[in-house]
């Protein structure tokens, strides 16, 4: 059993993720390439890392979403396999239609790189099994397009199906994320037939070692290897 870590042209958090999976958690992980038509044999989970895949051309994740590997990832997700998309990985999951909605440019127009407070609303389920429901944690965000947008009907459906996985704790007076304008403060959502897919903007791999400033992200990546 192993985690397939998918590399696109322009992925840049791929090595950080591989480091955490293989050196910190000491689990099995193998590379998959965007041009591959199948996931590596024995794949038990898929990780789409952060970065600027295919130059962010057209829209973030738009090119990556149509690479050959994504057909395999889609089949894997539809069969109930665990899939985690971090930052650009989340954008790719939305562009490919595996998750609903889209990540728009941050409301202020800035690239934001800072640590933010998060409420793990979906704690206890899916890939967030390692967290308590509504547990408060801190992770780093580093993005230009993290402003989650979906129409009202989609947002209502997400709330009803309890698919809002995590929210930013700092909200503006409209209830959107202060940092980037994400609707309802959404930082990550579940999807797939059994909430087996998780996309989120914060970077759990950057808070996975105490000496690097925190381990709040470690339990998420650990869950991926189970």
């Amino acid at each position, binding site marked *: 059993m192993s985690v397939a870590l998918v590399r696109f042209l322009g992925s840049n958090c791929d090595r950080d993720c591989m480091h955490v999976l293989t050196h910190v958690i000491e689990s099995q992980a193998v590379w998959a390439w965007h041009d591959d038509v199948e996931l590596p044999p024995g794949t038990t989970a898929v990780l789409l890392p952060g970065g600027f895949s295919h130059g962010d051309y*057209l*829209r973030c994740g*738009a090119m990556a979403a*149509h690479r050959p590997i994504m057909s395999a990832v889609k089949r894997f997700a539809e069969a109930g396999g665990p899939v985690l998309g971090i930052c650009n990985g989340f954008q790719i999951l939305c*562009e490919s239609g595996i998750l609903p*909605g*889209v990540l*728009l*440019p*941050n*409301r*202020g*127009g800035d690239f934001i790189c800072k640590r933010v407070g998060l409420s793990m609303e979906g704690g206890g389920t899916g890939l967030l099994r390692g967290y308590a429901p509504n547990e408060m944690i801190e992770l780093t965000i580093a993005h230009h397009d993290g*402003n989650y*947008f*979906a*129409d009202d009907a989609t947002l209502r459906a997400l709330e009803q199906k309890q698919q809002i996985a995590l929210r930013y704790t700092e909200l503006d007076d409209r209830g959107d994320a202060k940092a980037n*304008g994400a609707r309802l403060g959404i930082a990550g959502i579940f999807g797939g037939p059994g909430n087996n897919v998780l996309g989120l903007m914060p970077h759990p791999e950057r808070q996975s070692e105490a000496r690097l400033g925190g381990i709040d992200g470690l339990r998420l990546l650990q869950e991926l290897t189970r």
Partner: protein
Amino acid sequence: MVSRARVFVTLKAGVLDPQGDAVQESLASLGFDGVHDVRVGKVVDLHFAETSREDAFARLGAMATKLLANPVVENHRIELVEATKGSQ
């Protein structure tokens, strides 16, 4: 028959456009007063093997919804460019 098209991709009404806002602010700082609601979109020019207008519309529509525009937040408009006699 057509062999060229231009696809305009624009943000749907109500979708925030930070880029447009920034352009608007810059225009104001350059002294261009009275400009409001600037929205930035994309233009995609395509050349393809000559085909009927109907076929071109159908295929470009599919291209637009599958890749060129994200229907969640963007609209698209297709403009076919007639082949000029001299270029045939």
